[in-house]
């Protein structure tokens, strides 16, 4: 079993529900829960993968009799049929499809591979060409395995319908019947993106990475932009090819997305600890860029101080710090738990033990523990309503902390800005505009602009 499989798989059919409920319980169970979680972590680890890879690995279809092993495998696996099947006039040809094709940048993801930038990256990496390299295609198109490609599938269509909604060969026909519950299509490869948790995982699989898709440090060094993501903001920015549901936008989607991203980043870290990049270090992409990429000597860096060992890069703060601040205001108990889990990861990474293997194993486990906990948190937040006063307190708290958040790097500053925007959307929906809070948000923005004048644009 590869290290990645140990972390992201394998799949068992009932893993999602069981693991999900259990981790929600653990969320509230405190110390005892943490121990239990530690002991059961490998089994619980399935949840995440289950959700992510279900379409590709879906179990046997309902009632079809297998012919030969070869055939059955092909027949059982949902196939990617390409965008043409969705784009006919009576289906999505007049609504979702043109929005995607004309306005949504996902439809240009494949074309990008032909531009000068992509060529340059491929040259540095000594790839034959970006448009044929699985390393690029896995996110810039749908990298369907050969057995799952229908004749109509075409890799040049970019990040098309099935990239997010799942391979459609089996659910394409039943899903046209609106009376068929969407959940019943999941076994056929359908991904219910209206479910915020599923949506987060689907987006994060490329926009943060998973076992197969990673913008690692080598790719960034070669010239690929570093990844950045916030579920609510990116959903809002995406030209909608669906009817927006006001109740899901804002605070809830933001908070859930934050927890999901933290969990995902910890799974990546765990895999990278298992399979170090260089000198025993997890891939540098798990660390904060500016902790190394600043001119030396940097007085600002030294003044800020170090969370662990000076000179050892810190794990990216951008996926934790704003969430941490938010929890501190609205769920102090959970924030304390987060701190405990986080401390274990940092202490593990910075430990100076003479048994590297044991230290590595412990740290990997600490990252997985945090991932599981954050997955549970994400589920809890999916059904959590935030009151106007909670939202106000959270916005005030994040804004008041603007300088400190900005000091953690542009990526953290950016997350702070996206956070207050998302939280204010929900606040407004409940209590209407509030000039005083808007002032707070303006202050935060001016601090961030002041610190990162070249990165912040209108």
């Amino acid at each position: 079993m590869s290290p990645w499989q140990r972390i992201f798989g394998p799949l068992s059919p009932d893993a999602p529900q069981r693991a999900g409920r259990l981790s929600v319980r653990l969320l509230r169970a405190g110390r005892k829960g943490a121990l239990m979680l530690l002991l059961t972590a490998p089994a619980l680890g399935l949840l995440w993968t289950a959700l992510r890879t279900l379409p590709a690995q879906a179990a046997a279809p309902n009632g079809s009799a297998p012919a030969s092993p070869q055939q059955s495998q092909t027949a059982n696996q949902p196939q990617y049929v390409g965008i043409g099947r969705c784009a006919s006039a009576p289906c999505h040809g007049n609504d979702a499809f043109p929005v995607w094709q004309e306005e949504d940048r996902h439809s240009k993801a494949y074309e990008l591979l032909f531009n000068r930038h992509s060529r340059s990256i491929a040259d540095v990496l000594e790839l034959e060409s970006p448009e044929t390299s699985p390393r690029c295609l896995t996110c810039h198109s749908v990298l369907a395995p050969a057995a799952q490609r229908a004749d109509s599938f075409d890799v040049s269509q970019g990040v098309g319908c099935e990239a997010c909604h799942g391979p459609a060969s089996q659910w394409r026909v039943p899903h046209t019947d609106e009376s068929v519950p969407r959940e019943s299509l999941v076994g056929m490869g359908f991904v219910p993106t209206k479910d915020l948790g599923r949506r987060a995982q689907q987006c994060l699989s490329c926009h943060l990475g998973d076992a197969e898709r990673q913008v690692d440090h080598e790719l960034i060094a070669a010239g690929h932009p570093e990844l950045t993501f916030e579920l609510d903001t990116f959903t809002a920015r995406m030209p909608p090819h669906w009817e927006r549901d006001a109740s899901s936008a804002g605070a809830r989607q933001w908070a859930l997305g934050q927890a999901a991203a933290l969990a995902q980043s910890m799974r990546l870290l765990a895999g990278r600890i298992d399979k170090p990049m260089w000198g025993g270090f997890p891939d540098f992409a798990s660390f904060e860029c500016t902790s190394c990429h600043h001119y030396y000597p940097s007085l600002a860096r030294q003044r800020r101080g170090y969370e662990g060992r000076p000179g050892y890069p810190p794990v990216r703060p951008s996926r934790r710090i704003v969430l941490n601040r938010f929890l501190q205001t609205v769920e102090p108990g959970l924030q304390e738990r987060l701190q405990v889990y986080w401390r274990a990861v940092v202490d593990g990474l910075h430990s100076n033990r003479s048994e590297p293997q044991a230290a590595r194993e412990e740290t990997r486990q600490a990252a997985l523990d945090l991932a599981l906990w954050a997955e549970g948190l994400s589920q809890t937040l999916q059904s959590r309503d935030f009151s106007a006063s909670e939202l106000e307190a959270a916005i005030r708290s994040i804004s008041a902390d603007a300088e400190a958040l900005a000091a953690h790097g542009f990526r953290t500053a950016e997350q702070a800005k996206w956070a207050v925007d998302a939280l204010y959307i929900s606040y407004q929906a409940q209590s209407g505009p509030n000039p005083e809070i808007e002032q707070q948000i303006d202050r935060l923005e001016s601090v961030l602009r002041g610190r990162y004048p070249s990165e912040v644009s209108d």
Partner: protein
Amino acid sequence: MMKNRPILTTALMSLAAFCIDVGIAGSEPRLAVAHQESRVSLALGSQSCAAPVCHGSSAAYAEGEVRRDEYGIWSSRDRHARAYSVLLDETARRMAANLGIGPAHKAGLCLDCHAFNPPAAQRSELLRVTEGVGCEACHGASSLWLGSHVSADGGRAALGMDDHTDVETRAVMCLSCHQGDATKSVDHRLIAAGHPMLEFELDTFEALMPRHWKATEDNWAGVRRWATGQAVALRESMRQLQRRASRTGWSQWPEFADFECSSCHHSLIVYASGEDFQPSPRQRRGFSSTPGLPPWDPSRAIVLRQLLAVAQPGRSAELDEEVKTLRDLLRSPRDNRVQVADQARRIADLADGYAESFKTLQANAQMVRAVLTQLASQSSAISDAGRRSAQQATMAADALYASYRHNAGGSAEVDAIVNRLYLNLQSSPAYDPASFGQILRELESGLR
């Protein structure tokens, strides 16, 4: 004076030493006893050297082996005398806080180089760390030889005093702090906490140090000093690498300080994407191995190698080969930990041989020109190897051309080029290999 009236001089100095001894005995009888019984030389502090007839004269004596005003030069002009006081400033406070070591001026980690901080068994009660890097920090704890070194019959080394007229001994002594030794090291943790990175080149740093000794060397001694200093620095840095690679702790190895700083410490410039895309300066420079991994810093070998190519052509290929092996091993520093330590030892042994042969290097104008031209012709390799290599090349050009100018006359044009090399390194926190390499290349035409 020594020659004319040796007896009187010796008598005066012995008297001074005697006074010091009496002083000690008078105030601290226990010390005097310990002093007589001890086989270990005790540190007595710089005041013990500062009697007016010894090294505390207000003006230099023209005659004699020593100047006699050494103490005054050190205490008023030499920055070694202020090494302790910097431990009290804001930078030191911040560093100590980042390191969690308590006050810097009380931490052994700092005092080991910012003062003379011998083990307890070697301390007398006269020693004050507050004096900074005083006489004994370089010349050794003096109680066993303070009285007898004034006559120096049979040589100072025989008395247990380090012989600093030997350039190799001196280089080892300087490097013990300025590069690190078995117990002292400015590693990445210290640098991150705020300590400046160490830079050192023997001849340049000696030229910068207010001179408290009398030069008795021949015309091309500067070249020998530079060459020996380079070889000893390579040897000691390889021993340091060997020690570091022998550590097993998870976060103790690899040690980032062994790798090229600007490979990580550069800005993340993002140019326009799409068709307007421009590769970043780092990407334009290209990657010698996997993109995104820090390469080893070859600054201790890459400039020395240019001297070998001229002075001992047969040996430069051998060093190149061994260095290449080390560089390749360091692409996977943890997997190759044991091999790295072994390879570092091999290169240290080679460097030991160079140091021995450079002590008697017969330099001349033609050779120095050839080394400078060689440096210029390797400008791309040197500048691409990083800022520390560029620093070594700059100090090499400075040291070599100073000797050349002294013996064969110099040109303002070359002086200007050397100045521009220094300015290039100081002008911006961003090291720019392209512009540095261009200036270094100009040395060739400047020498013509």
